[in-house]
C-alpha cells in the first residue's frame, strides 16, 4: 500500500468525527521503483494532505524524506519532486496496521492489503 492510498483513507467507524489521517504501524516496508512523472506530481500536489504524507513517511522509517511544510513553489525543484515521488508512490507498507486516530481501532494490513471492513456494531 502506497502512501497515496493512505492519503485517501479514513476511519469510517460510526460516531468517529476525525478519522483522518489514520496512524500507520509499519512492520514491513518495501520500496518499488517507478518512473517519475513531474506532470502527475504537480497535478496531484494541491490535493494531498501534506501533514498526513509527512507522518506516513516518518512511520515508514523516513523521517527526513519530506519537509514539514510544503507549498507549490517547491515543485520547481527536482530534489523536492524526487522526494515527493518517493514518499507518495515508491514506499509501500506490506505488513502492519492502520490505526483510527480517534478510537485506536486497528485495521490490519496483510500482503499490502488493508482490511477496512467494519464490525456490525461499527456501521
Amino acid at each position, binding site marked *: 500500500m*502506497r502512501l*497515496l*492510498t493512505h492519503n485517501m483513507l*479514513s476511519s*469510517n467507524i460510526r460516531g468517529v468525527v476525525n478519522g483522518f489521517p489514520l496512524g500507520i504501524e509499519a512492520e514491513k516496508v518495501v520500496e518499488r521503483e517507478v518512473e517519475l512523472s513531474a506532470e*502527475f506530481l504537480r*497535478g496531484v500536489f494541491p490535493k494531498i494532505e501534506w501533514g498526513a504524507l509527512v507522518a506516513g513517511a516518518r512511520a515508514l522509517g523516513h523521517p527526513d524524506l519530506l519537509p514539514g511544510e510544503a507549498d507549490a513553489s517547491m515543485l520547481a525543484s527536482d530534489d523536492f519532486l524526487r522526494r515527493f515521488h518517493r514518499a507518495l508512490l515508491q514506499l509501500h507498507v506490506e505488513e502492519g496496521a492502520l490505526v483510527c486516530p480517534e478510537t485506536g481501532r486497528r485495521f490490519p494490513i496483510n500482503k*499490502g492489503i488493508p482490511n*477496512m471492513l*467494519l464490525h456490525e456494531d461499527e456501521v
Partner: protein
Amino acid sequence: MKLKHLEGLLGDLQQFSNPKVELEQYPTGPHIASRMIYTAENSFDDISGKVVADFGCGCGTLGVASSLLGAEHVVGIDIDPQSLEIASQNAEDLEVGINFIWSDIKNLKLRGPLVDTVVMNPPFGTRKKGSDMEFLCMALKVASRAVYSLHKTTTREHIKRTALRDYGAKSAEVLCELRFDVPQLYKFHKKKEVDVAVDLWRFVP
C-alpha cells in the same frame, strides 16, 4: 497499446475460482473490459496519468486494464478477500502495481478529490436489490472526473434519472449497449449462458 493487444492480455487473467452468488461474482470479460477502458482513455483521456479506483474489483480486470493503459495509480476495492488475492496475483503476473483495499463499498470513505476516475462493473442488483445504485452513488461522490459503469439496459431510464436528480451527476450518457454473457456459474441459472443486455455508461460527477 492497441485494443486487440489489451483484450489479449486481459484474456489471460485468472478469474473467480469459487464465485459467490450473493456477491454477484461474474467476471467482466476481456471483450467488454478492454472496450470500456480503451474508450475511457482514447475518447475521453480519463485513464493515463490519472488516479483510478476500481469498485468491486473482483479479479481486477478493470483495474489491470487501467494500469496497462497508463493510469498513474490504481486502487481496487472489494468485499471478498479471495477475489482480492486473485486480483493481486493478476496484477503481479502483468507487472502492474495496484493497491487493493478490503472493504464494503458502502462503508468506505475515500477522500474525494484524489480519485479522478472510477471504473466498475457493480453487482447488477439481481441478488440484493439496489446494490447497483449504492455503487453508483458512492462512485459519483468519490470521482472528480468521470465514472464508467455497466448497468442492465432494462434499468436505463431509472439510472439516468437517479444519477442526474439524486446523485448530482452533471451528465449521464450511454456510450454503447453490449451483450454480457453471465456464464452458468450458479445453479439457479437454467441455461448454459444467460445473455444480458448491458449499457456502458459514462457519468460526469
